[in-house]
């Protein structure tokens, strides 16, 4: 008789909730009549994400390993799961916005209709929506939550695919500019599959070297037998796979193209949630499995952090598209986050708390920034060219003010969450003696400050273009998202104490 593994259902509740909602979503898609699908799916997706969020909150304080060592339920994991679920719920709200676009949705009416065909033009303003996006997004949220909890390389790989596959699909489901959207999906898919192959080969090599894929077992083997060539190669390939998802340079090349091409609500979702999930997995892999051999990967991560910060900041300078610019910003922020990863020392742990806080702050601000992007429109959908944003403050002072505030937060200006987060990760890096890294980070954030400021200047100090865009009046969902993200960015900047305490208390990885 084989012992059944212990399975703590309560520890699994966040996943059960989210995946359950997604499965019900598939059933709704199968059996419900078309006209009720959209509201039902939105409600289901919200129930799933918010329910998952609530479940993680209820689990707070737990620290255990369950499902035969495959899942870790610990402070850091739960904090990140709650972050992902919360940001996921906000993204779903953006998905659900129907008031902005005369085309009624950001998502295509029927993905099967070839782009640009007469039927496609007919459907442009159709009430129909490819409502599969909601269950797909919910699956992705579930995959991300699993990703940060995975205590086993196999579960990590499965979670990686569960979060990636739906994302590949919803990237290609834009209602307008479908050609760009589909191109983004193809690129993301091919490169993503390429990266998963690397991750998988790394998994195989680590398995060959240690005889196990459980992080705790790997740690044991690393401690006992040291690191051999095979193990180190495996680690390198695993890191490549994870860095790809986190859009860290030099594995960032897909980011600008996909961020630009994907429907903006999806971009917001990817930029915020995928980053959180990928960094959760990076933290777990590096510290739980390879924490005792940190001398092997520390120089590598150090270098990659610098490359990512520099590439993101410098390339961002010459962008002419808002979404592309935010993509490079995301690459630079990945570098800043790696600064926090470097600052995570087994002894102190302040780097972990700093990274957790940074992820939360960055995710909220990013969702807000992309939400603003959805508001600025011309006759052809969103107006994402920078030139079109000229003089936006005249047309809509409130929109410009919100965007300015969020950009300042991304730039790390004091009294915004961005400042607190940067402050925390840089300090963590300095604490472990990595002050040259902090210096590079400071300089690059100054450079990155330029391109954020450039948009601000453009909005406030330029003559509006003749045929400039209009600013749509957002419906309730987008309004909620904007209110929440702006308020959170402000609160986390002015009185971050309690959330920092929370991150500090949660900063624990079991394994």
């Amino acid at each position, binding site marked *: 008789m084989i012992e059944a593994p212990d399975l703590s259902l309560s520890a699994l509740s966040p996943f059960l909730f989210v995946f359950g909602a997604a499965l019900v979503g598939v059933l709704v898609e199968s059996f419900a009549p078309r006209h009720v699908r959209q509201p039902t799916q939105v409600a289901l997706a919200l129930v799933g994400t918010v329910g998952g969020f609530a479940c993680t909150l209820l689990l707070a304080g737990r620290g255990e390993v369950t499902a035969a060592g495959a899942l870790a339920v610990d402070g850091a994991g739960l904090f990140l799961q709650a972050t992902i679920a919360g940001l996921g719920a906000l993204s779903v709200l953006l998905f659900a916005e129907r008031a902005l676009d005369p085309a009624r949705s950001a998502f295509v009416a029927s993905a099967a209709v070839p782009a640009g065909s007469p039927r496609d033009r007919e459907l442009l303003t159709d009430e129909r929506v490819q409502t599969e996006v909601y269950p797909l997004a919910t699956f992705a949220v579930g995959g991300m939550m699993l990703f940060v909890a995975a205590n086993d390389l196999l579960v990590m790989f499965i979670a990686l695919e569960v979060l990636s596959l739906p994302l590949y699909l919803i990237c290609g489901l834009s209602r307008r500019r479908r*050609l760009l959207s589909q191109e983004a999906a193809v690129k993301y898919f091919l490169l993503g599959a390429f990266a998963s192959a690397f991750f998988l080969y790394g998994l195989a090599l680590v398995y060959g070297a240690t005889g196990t894929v459980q992080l705790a077992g790997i740690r044991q083997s690393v401690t006992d037998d040291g690191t051999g060539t095979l193990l180190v190669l495996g680690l390198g390939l695993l890191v490549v796979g994870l860095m790809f998802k986190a859009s860290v340079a030099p594995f960032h090349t897909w980011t600008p193209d996909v961020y630009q091409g994907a429907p903006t609500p999806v971009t917001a979702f990817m930029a915020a949630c995928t980053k959180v999930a990928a960094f959760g997995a990076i933290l777990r892999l590096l510290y739980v499995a390879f924490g005792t051999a940190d001398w092997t990967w520390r120089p590598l991560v150090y270098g990659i952090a610098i490359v990512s910060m520099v590439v993101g900041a410098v390339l961002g300078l010459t962008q002419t598209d808002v979404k592309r610019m935010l993509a490079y910003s995301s690459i630079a922020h990945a570098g800043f986050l790696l600064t926090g990863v470097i600052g995570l020392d087994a002894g102190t742990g302040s780097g972990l708390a700093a990274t957790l806080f940074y992820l939360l702050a960055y995710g909220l601000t990013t969702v807000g920034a992309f939400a603003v992007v959805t508001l600025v429109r011309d006759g052809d959908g969103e107006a994402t060219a920078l030139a079109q944003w000229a003089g936006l403050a005249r047309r809509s002072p409130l929109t410009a003010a919100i965007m300015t505030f969020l950009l300042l937060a991304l730039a790390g200006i004091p009294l915004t969450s961005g400042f607190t987060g940067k402050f925390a990760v840089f300090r963590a890096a300095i604490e472990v003696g990595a002050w040259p890294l902090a210096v590079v980070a400071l300089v690059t954030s100054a450079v990155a400050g330029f391109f954020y400021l450039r948009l601000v200047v453009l909005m406030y100090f330029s003559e509006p273009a003749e045929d400039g865009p209009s600013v749509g009046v957002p419906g309730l969902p987008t309004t909620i998202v904007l209110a929440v993200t702006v308020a959170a960015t402000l609160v986390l900047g002015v009185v971050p104490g309690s959330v920092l305490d929370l991150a500090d208390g949660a900063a624990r990885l079991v394994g």
Partner: protein
Amino acid sequence: MSLTNYLVLAAILFTVGAVGVLVRRNAIVVFMCIELMLNSVNLTLVTFARSTGTLDGQVIAFFVMVVAAAEVVVGLAIIMSIYRTRRSASVDDANLLKY
């Protein structure tokens, strides 16, 4: 016959797949190359399962197959939708997004 030979074969297959991704233009072929990479990993896993005397490798190989199948479905759906618009499956033609 030494197990190393299997590992070497797998490494060669993986490299062939990776090079194929770089040099082939047809999206379907690129995708097949990625599948080749995944399957070379499967070979590696099974070999290691044998050499370490654990079953994990074989189990993982199963999971990889399933994931690969799911990837095929998603991938082909995406490639087909773009093909229907562009009438081309060349990855080099999908080049609107750049710089």
